């Protein structure tokens, strides 16, 4: 178990992109992290939707985010042919929690409440995806 917390070599598949999500992935390709906010009720949400899941308004807009937040929960997956990796939720400073992976860190030292920041990780033939690392 010496390499129990070694960095994962798990390859990330290309995310499926549709017309609704394409602006997010175009920005990701340029290294920018976007979230959606509703201008009617003022709330941000995740994953990005055209219709606000809170007030059902269609007045939602893309907003640049620094991609900072704290770990809400996580789980290190050991049953993996490419080595352990961490899945979890980050509660963004804007409010919503999002599913993600934690990278570039000691998997054994992850903790709920830890501050993290977004970075982008390449995928197999698609746009890069947002993952998080401790700050």
């Amino acid at each position, binding site marked *: 178990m010496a390499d129990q917390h070694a960095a994962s070599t798990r390859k990330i598949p290309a995310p499926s992109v549709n017309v609704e999500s394409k602006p997010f992935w175009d920005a990701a390709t340029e290294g920018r992290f976007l979230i959606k906010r509703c201008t009617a009720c003022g709330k941000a949400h995740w994953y990005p939707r055209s219709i606000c899941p*809170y007030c059902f308004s269609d007045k939602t807009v893309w907003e640049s985010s620094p991609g900072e937040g704290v770990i809400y929960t996580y*789980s290190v*997956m050991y049953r993996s042919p490419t080595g352990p990796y961490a*899945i979890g939720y980050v509660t963004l400073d804007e409010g919503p929690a999002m599913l993600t992976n934690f990278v570039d860190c000691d998997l054994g030292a992850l903790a709920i409440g830890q501050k993290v920041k977004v970075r982008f990780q390449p995928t197999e033939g698609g746009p890069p995806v947002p993952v998080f690392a401790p700050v």
Partner: protein
Amino acid sequence: MSIKGKAYIAGAFEHPTRLATDKSTPQLHAECAKGALEDAGLTKDDIDGYFCAGDAPGFGALSMADYMGLKLRHIDSTETGGSSYIVHVGHAAEAIAAGKCSVALVTLAGRPRSQQGGGMGRGGPGGGGEVPEAGFENIYGGSTHNTYGMCAMRHMYEFGTTSEQLAWIKVAASHHAQWNPHAMLPEVVTVEDVLASPLIADPLHRLDCCVISDGGGALLVVAPEVARSLKRPLVRIMGAAEAPKGPAGGLNLDLTYSGAVWSGPRAFAEAGVTPSDIKYASIYDSFTITVLMQLEDLGFCKKGEGGMFVSDGNLISGVGKLPFNTDGGGLCNNHPTNRGGITKVIEAVRQLRGEAHPKVQVPNCDVTLAHGTGGSLGVRHGAATLIMERA
């Protein structure tokens, strides 16, 4: 309108196979249907309602109805993952009460052990570019193990729940499985055994996880006059409710509770009983944490106190206050096509009929509950609660 007392479960059959390399999935569905019909003393042509979920091959209920030669007045392919079949019993009771059908068949079958697959959603519908969350979730290596692991991690953080407490759930299931000749894991295990098994998805160990098995089951839900005409004990449906839950835009995410907080109270209210009236509970046990969260959410104990509630054998029949999963459950007996809802109802029926194994039969078992979670507690899921009584 209420379903209370307006429908009965007259037939129930659990397929004995655990490895079905020589049968097709449609064949397994039909064998399960046949077994339930024989159990009830009904024939195929009595069936006028059919309920199935995503494990049924083809287009909704239509392909399987044609395969089995069913002439139907009512079809329903409601899909909420592994809890689908508990939803189906509730819907069948509604349909019967509403006069839409009088004999409703529910089937589940599949062969994940023969057809080795991987990842979340085996036995259910797949993803695709137009599934709205797919691009934002399917990339992170989420499986049932690690998404339930995230729930356990947060539950431990908020309430101080321990791995030892979770292990007691597996220990109780193993005490029951030792009496089930079909159980995949009939050996009694200890808390130490669970903690010594390898970590699969932090903090869940291998023995916190259910088995993967082939197999299936079927139920027949019938009108009261049909039930009374048969030579079987009367198992009356008293209440049923369902509720989906998901991240819902991500604000105020709380992975420490399930949709059972909504389905449970509604089912209890319809049945006119409370958790203290339940003599036996079938509680979906995809993982030990699943059981713990659902017990809290259904009101068997307060939120956050599930760890204490399940400890020291409190779920073992003849030992504790709330006998659960006396067939060994998904943790030890089977989890056909990765969907445990139907076996939860079947064992609750056995208990009400007095047909559970004598070593685990609950004395005077007059009111039972079956509860299921389909999908993942850590992402999005469907909860279903069913309350039954011996008439």
